[in-house]
């Protein structure tokens, strides 16, 4: 097999190429784009979506989806601020955040795995329910900077060797999740489930347990990500995290995590998140009105899905999904 066709097999390649082309292209037109402060802005801004996209990868490779993450992260970022301003320790409030996320994930996972309900509907419903509970709990309250735990404030403001801590957290999570997804048997099973659910059942994979576990993991990570969100914005209100779920799914798709299940990596998801964030800044650097940002994002996602489809039909002619449709 020649080099070119092997390179095409790398799902992350289009995302990486896009990242490089847009970075260099914008920099050539506006040299200030190459300054370290822009790079810093990209890395700082991307942390939240990157972490959520890593978590989302667990469910998307199973051919499922979790739309409730935007409500979960908003709720836990509020809870962390609210509880710590009442005097609870950081460890305790982080545990609460992880538990809330895991509980929502467990509900999603149970309904999807054991009752066989479609994840799109289930997580749409929990999106509403969590947001409703959040609005009730947080009615009229706003978390301001003085209520944010000192450690989180510090994390949000400082960097290590010029790299924002929030981005380092995302990278550490990416490496840990990446190794798990690559090495652990249970995580490999997720890919098998996404490629062909009934075959996965037949070869003896405990499909239901795996689906439940993946949703719990996604929920718990999204819950903990509330801490990162609070560190980033130093504030939280009932508007926090509204609509974030679609951006997260978009980041995954752009990064080569196939919505049809069975392929994609957490590395790709992070690349996708960085690409979306970079476009946001490059629009500004090119002097294009900010109002174009969302439209460009949308066009980019269409391009990414199209490219993904093109590559998967060209590179893998014996693709089962292709034969089915």
């Amino acid at each position, binding site marked *: 097999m020649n080099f070119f066709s092997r390179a095409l097999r790398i799902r992350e390649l289009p995302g990486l190429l896009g990242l490089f082309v847009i970075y260099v292209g914008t920099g050539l037109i506006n040299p200030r784009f190459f300054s370290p402060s822009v790079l810093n802005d990209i890395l700082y801004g991307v942390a939240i979506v990157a972490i959520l996209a890593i978590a989302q990868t667990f469910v998307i490779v199973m051919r499922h989806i979790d739309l409730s993450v935007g409500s979960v992260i908003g709720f836990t970022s509020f809870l962390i601020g609210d509880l710590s301003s009442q005097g609870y320790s950081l460890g305790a409030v982080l545990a609460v955040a992880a538990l809330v996320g895991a509980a929502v994930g467990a509900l999603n996972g149970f*309904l999807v795995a054991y009752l066989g*309900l479609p994840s799109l509907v289930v997580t749409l419903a929990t999106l509403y329910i969590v947001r*409703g*509970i959040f609005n009730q709990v947080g009615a009229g309250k706003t978390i301001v900077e003085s209520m944010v735990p000192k450690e989180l404030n510090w994390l949000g403001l400082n960097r290590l060797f010029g790299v924002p801590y929030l981005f380092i957290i995302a990278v550490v999570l990416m490496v840990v999740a990446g190794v798990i997804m690559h090495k652990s048997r249970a995580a490999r099973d997720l890919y098998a489930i996404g490629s062909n659910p009934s075959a996965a059942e037949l070869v003896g994979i405990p499909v239901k347990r795996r689906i439940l576990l993946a949703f719990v993991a996604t929920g718990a990570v999204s819950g903990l990500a509330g801490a990162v969100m609070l560190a980033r914005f130093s504030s939280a209100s009932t508007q926090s995290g509204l609509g974030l779920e679609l951006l997260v799914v978009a980041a995954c798709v752009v990064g080569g995590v196939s919505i049809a299940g069975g392929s994609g990596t957490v590395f790709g998801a992070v690349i996708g998140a960085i690409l979306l964030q970079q476009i946001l800044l490059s629009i500004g650097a090119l002097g294009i009105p900010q109002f174009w940002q969302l439209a*460009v994002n949308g066009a980019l*996602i*269409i391009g990414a899905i199209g490219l993904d489809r093109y590559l998967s039909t060209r590179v893998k002619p014996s693709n089962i999904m292709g034969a089915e449709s």
Partner: protein
Amino acid sequence: MSKFSIRKSLFTWDKGVVLFLVISILIGSFGSQYFATASNLSFVIQSIAEIAIIATAMAFLIISGEIDLSVASMMALTSASIGYAFQAGVPFEASILIGLLVGLLAGIFNGVLVTVFGLPSLAVTIATLALYRGLCWVLLENKPVNQLPTDWVALGNENIPNTFLPWATIPLVLLAGVAWFVLHTTKLGRWVFVIGTNPVAAKFSGIPVNRVKLGLFAYSGLMSAVAGVIYTLRFASASPDGGAGYELSVIAAVLFGGVAIAGGVGTMWGVLAAVISLGVIRSALQLVGFSANALLVVSGGLLLISVILPRVTEFVRSQRSRASIQSNNKEKVNT
């Protein structure tokens, strides 16, 4: 198979929704003296008109096994186009036509991506959700258009003379009637069910699957555009962020109305009953003092119930039939 067993049974979910509608109207009437007043009923109809009109098209799409998440963005894009054209000096009537055309084209674009390029509709319409909403911002930036002709705005806010029905009732009844007629009495409607049940079999039996699906996406765009016109008149404003999140309300209503997300199952009157009962229960709960937050939880809970309950009845039925098969087998062994 399970789909047919559900349809054959005496109690089906869409009948349950109608029952639910009656109950919620009763609760509303007994719970609050303001519920059954003309002004409140007018308000309820007005508040559901846009969602109901989009839901008629969404029902077709979901029954055919596809989905369209971009409906709220197409609705807003229609509204933004109307505002943009009117601001640029186009007569308001022509602006409305331009808006409808934009919505139709947006729907066709979705359909082309799905049918010609073979992309999954869930992913495509998440992308065009962002794209169309982004185009709203490009058209209007952050400046909503508010100076709309007053006699048109009156259409969006006043009732038909001598009734408590808002003007939006007319397109709502007409479009719902057409949707019901097409889905349940025409060949096209049968095709939609067949495509949703088994697209491959549909193709081999000569149904032009891709053309039908393309048509359904265009229909979804057009209905979103009609809803966009109503929305613009109701709020007397074209703004880039109008109707955000409506797509979830529409899908929730369609699924609550008994349409199966896997495709192939659903009735138009179930969907309409669901939209109306969600509007009624919202109004009733508001009148008896529930907060808007509780309503969110109720909407989510109803959505969950609407998918869980059919699953439970199916399970009970399969247990029962298994038991009867076993007892039959025993009898055979005995004889």
